[in-house]
C-alpha cells in the first residue's frame, strides 16, 4: 500500500473504528469511550496533516465499485486542493470539540455522545475526500443522519426531539432536488466522477437548459444543508442539541457541507449564468434576512446560529461571484472562529446555566477571563475587524463581488456585513457590560443556585484548551490566505492584492456596526435598546423570524396534514379493512368445518375406510 493510501485510510477510518469500538463494547464505560474517540480524532488529524503536507494530487485514488453496461461507478479518494484543506479543518475542529466535550459533557451520557461524535467525524471526512458524486451523496446523507442523532441527543426533551426531526426533514426537502440533479447529471454525462464533471469538455457537452436545471437542483440540496432561505428554519431550532454539537454542526461539518459541495462543483455552477443569479439573490437576501433576526435575539446560541446562516451566505456569495479562493478561505476561517464562538458560548452556558446573554452578563460573565477572550476574538473575527481572520476572508468576498457585480447584490452584502458587526458586538457588550438598570430584561434568568458558589473562576482546562487553541487559529488564520490559494490551484497567480483603499469600505462598515452596538449597548448608562425597537412592528417581525415558521405551519403543514388524513383513511378503510375481511372469512370457514369433527372415533374410521375404498375403486378403474 502506498503511503498516501495508508494515510487517507487512517484519516477516514480511524473515527469509524472508534465509533464501532466505543458504541459496541463501551456503552457503559464513558472514560474508555472518550479515550478511544479522542485517539481516533488524533489519528485522523495527524493523517490529514500528513496528506496536506504531501500536497495535492490531481488524479483520484479510485476503485471500480459498480459496473452496469457502459456505466462505471468509481469510489475512492480525491486528494486535490479543496479536499485536503477542508479535510484538515474538519479533523482539527472535530478533535477540538471532542476535547471540549470532555469538560462540557462531563455529567452527560458520554458512552453515547462520543461514539456519535466519531460517527459524525467519519461521515464528514469521507464526504470531503470522496471522488464520486454518488459517494459524496451517500456521505452527505450520513452527515445529515449524524446531525439528526446529535441534535436529538437529549431525546427525552420534546423540543430537542422536534428540532432533530425538523432538521432531518427540512434538509431532506433539498436533498430530493440534489438526488434528482445527480440522476440527471448521470443521464447527461454518463458518469459522476468529480474531476471529470468539472473538466471544461464535459461542461461544454451539456446543453445549456439542462445545465441550468441540473445546477439549480444541486443548489436546492445546498440550500437545505447550508440553511439558506427558504429552508433555513431548521438551523436555529437545532440549538436544542448540546453546545459541542452546535459548534461542530456550524463550523466544519453539516452546514459547511453545502457550501463545500458548491465549491467542489464550482466550474459547473459558474457555467450557468441563470443559476449564478439565483444563487446570488438567495445568498444576499439570506445574509441580510438572517442578520435581522440575530440582532433581536437574546439567546446566545440563537444569535450564533443566525450568524452562521449569514456567513454561509457570504461564502456562497464569494463562490458565486466567481472566486473559489474567497469562498473556501471564508469557509476555513469561519470554521475556526465559529467553533471558537460556540465553544465560548458553551463555556458561559455551562457555567451560568442559562442561554440568555443578559442573564449571563448580570451573573458576572466577564469574570471568566479565557472564555471572554475567546468570545471577543471570535466575535471580532466574525464582525470582520482587522487584523483577525474573518476580516481577510470577508474582504476577499466583497472584493470578488465588487468587481463587476450587480449593485443590488453589493448593497445587500454591505448591509449584511454591517449588521453582522452590529449584532456581534451587541452580543459582546451584553455579556461584558451588564446594565442592571437597562430596559432589557432577560427572557430566561439564570437559575438562582448557580449564582454564588462557583461564581468565580473559569471552566475546566479541557474546555479552555480548545478555546485557547481556536483563539490562536482564529487570529492567525487570516495570514494563511496565500497558502490556501496555492493549495487550491498551484498554477494560478495569487488572488488580487487589495490595497488599503479598496478595503476601506469593508473596514468602515464593520467599524460603524461595532461602534453603533457599543453606543446602544456597551457604554455606561446605555439604554440597551437597539435601533430596531423604534419600530415595534419591525422588531416583532425580526423576533419571530419573519413569521416563516408560522407561514409553513399554516400552508405546507396543513397540506401535508390533509394528505396524511386522506391516506390514513385509505389505509384504515381500504387496505386494513380488506385484510381484516380475509381473516374473518378464514375464521368463519374454520368454525363451520369444525362441526364435522364429531369426536366419535368410529365415525372417523368409517370415513377413512369409505375414502380408501373409493380411492381403490378409482385407481382400479384407471388401470
Amino acid at each position, binding site marked *: 500500500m502506498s503511503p498516501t493510501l495508508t494515510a487517507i485510510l487512517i484519516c477516514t477510518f480511524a473515527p469509524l473504528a472508534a465509533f464501532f469500538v466505543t458504541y459496541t463494547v463501551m456503552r457503559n464505560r464513558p472514560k474508555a469511550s472518550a479515550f478511544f474517540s479522542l485517539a481516533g480524532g488524533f489519528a485522523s488529524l495527524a493523517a490529514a496533516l500528513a496528506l496536506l503536507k504531501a500536497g495535492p494530487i490531481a488524479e483520484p485514488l479510485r476503485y471500480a465499485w459498480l459496473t452496469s453496461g457502459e456505466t462505471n461507478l468509481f469510489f475512492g479518494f480525491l486528494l486535490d486542493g479543496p479536499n485536503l484543506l477542508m479535510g484538515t479543518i474538519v479533523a482539527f475542529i472535530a478533535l477540538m470539540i471532542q476535547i471540549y466535550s470532555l469538560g462540557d459533557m462531563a455529567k452527560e451520557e458520554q458512552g453515547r455522545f462520543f461514539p456519535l461524535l466519531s460517527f459524525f467525524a467519519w461521515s464528514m471526512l469521507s464526504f470531503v475526500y470522496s471522488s464520486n458524486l454518488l459517494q459524496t451523496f451517500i456521505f452527505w446523507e450520513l452527515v445529515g443522519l449524524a446531525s439528526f442523532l446529535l441534535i436529538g441527543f437529549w431525546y427525552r426533551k420534546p423540543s430537542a426531539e422536534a428540532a432533530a426531526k425538523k432538521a432531518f426533514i427540512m434538509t431532506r426537502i433539498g436533498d430530493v432536488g440534489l438526488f434528482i440533479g445527480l440522476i440527471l447529471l448521470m443521464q447527461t454525462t454518463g458518469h459522476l466522477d468529480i474531476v471529470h464533471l468539472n473538466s471544461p469538455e464535459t461542461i461544454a457537452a451539456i446543453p445549456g437548459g439542462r445545465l441550468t436545471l441540473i445546477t439549480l437542483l444541486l443548489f436546492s440540496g445546498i440550500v437545505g444543508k447550508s440553511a439558506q432561505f427558504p429552508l433555513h428554519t431548521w438551523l436555529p431550532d437545532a440549538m436544542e442539541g448540546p453546545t459541542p454539537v452546535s459548534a461542530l454542526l456550524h463550523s466544519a461539518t453539516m452546514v459547511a457541507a453545502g457550501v463545500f459541495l458548491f465549491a467542489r462543483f464550482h466550474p459547473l455552477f459558474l457555467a450557468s449564468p441563470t443559476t449564478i443569479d439565483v444563487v446570488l439573490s438567495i445568498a444576499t437576501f439570506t445574509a441580510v434576512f438572517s442578520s435581522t433576526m440575530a440582532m433581536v435575539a437574546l439567546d446566545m446560541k440563537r444569535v450564533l446560529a443566525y450568524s452562521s446562516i449569514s456567513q454561509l451566505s457570504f461564502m456562497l456569495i464569494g463562490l458565486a461571484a466567481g472566486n473559489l479562493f474567497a469562498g473556501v478561505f471564508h469557509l476555513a476561517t469561519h470554521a475556526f472562529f465559529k467553533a471558537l464562538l460556540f465553544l465560548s458560548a458553551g463555556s458561559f452556558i455551562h457555567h451560568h446555566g442559562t442561554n440568555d446573554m443578559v442573564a449571563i452578563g448580570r451573573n458576572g460573565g466577564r469574570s471568566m477571563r479565557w472564555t471572554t477572550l475567546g468570545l471577543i476574538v471570535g466575535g471580532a473575527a466574525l464582525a470582520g475587524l482587522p487584523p483577525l481572520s474573518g476580516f481577510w476572508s470577508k474582504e476577499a468576498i466583497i472584493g470578488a463581488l465588487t468587481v463587476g457585480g450587480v449593485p443590488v447584490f453589493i448593497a445587500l452584502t454591505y448591509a449584511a456585513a454591517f449588521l453582522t458587526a452590529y449584532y456581534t458586538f451587541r452580543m459582546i457588550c451584553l455579556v461584558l457590560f451588564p446594565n442592571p438598570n437597562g430596559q432589557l430584561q432577560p427572557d430566561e434568568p439564570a437559575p438562582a443556585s448557580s449564582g454564588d458558589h462557583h461564581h468565580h473562576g473559569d471552566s475546566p482546562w479541557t474546555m479552555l484548551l480548545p478555546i485557547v487553541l481556536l483563539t490562536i487559529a482564529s487570529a492567525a488564520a487570516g495570514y494563511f490566505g496565500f497558502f490556501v490559494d496555492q493549495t487550491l490551484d498551484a498554477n494560478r497567480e495569487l488572488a488580487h492584492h487589495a490595497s488599503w483603499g479598496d478595503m476601506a469600505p469593508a473596514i468602515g462598515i464593520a467599524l460603524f456596526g461595532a461602534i453603533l452596538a457599543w453606543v446602544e449597548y456597551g457604554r455606561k448608562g446605555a439604554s440597551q435598546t437597539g435601533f430596531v425597537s423604534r419600530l415595534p412592528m419591525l422588531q416583532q417581525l425580526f423576533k419571530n423570524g419573519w413569521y416563516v415558521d408560522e407561514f409553513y405551519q399554516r400552508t405546507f403543514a396543513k397540506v401535508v396534514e390533509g394528505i396524511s388524513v386522506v391516506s390514513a383513511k385509505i389505509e384504515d378503510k381500504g387496505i386494513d379493512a380488506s385484510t381484516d375481511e380475509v381473516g374473518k372469512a378464514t375464521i368463519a370457514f374454520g*368454525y363451520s*368445518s*369444525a*362441526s*364435522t*369433527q*364429531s*369426536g*366419535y*372415533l*368410529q365415525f372417523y*374410521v*368409517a370415513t377413512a*375406510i369409505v375414502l380408501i375404498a373409493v380411492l381403490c375403486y378409482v385407481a382400479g378403474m384407471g388401470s
Partner: protein
Amino acid sequence: MSIHLHFFLLLSLLIFTIGIYGVLIRRNLIGILIGVELMLNAASLNFLAFNRYVVTDPAVGQIIVLFIIGLAAAEAAILLSIILRVYRSHRNIDADSLTEMRGR
C-alpha cells in the same frame, strides 16, 4: 385334491370383514383392538396364500408376515397401555363417550 387359492382369499376376506365390523361396531376399546388384530391377521393370511401359489421365491411373504406379527404385538402393547391410561383417567373405555376432541 388340492385346496385352491380362492379358498384362502375368501377366508382372508371373511376375517378382514369381521375385523372391520368389529372396529366399526364395538363400543369397547378392547373390542376395537381385537378387530384391528383380526384385520392384520387377514392381511398376513393373504400374503402367505399369494406366497404359496403365485410367487416362486417362498421366503419374501413369510418375512413380511413375521414383520406383521411383530408389528401387531407392538401395536397391541401400545394400544393396551393407552387404553389403560384412558381407563384410569375416565373410569370408562366406551368409545362413544370419549368425544372430548370434537370440533364443537
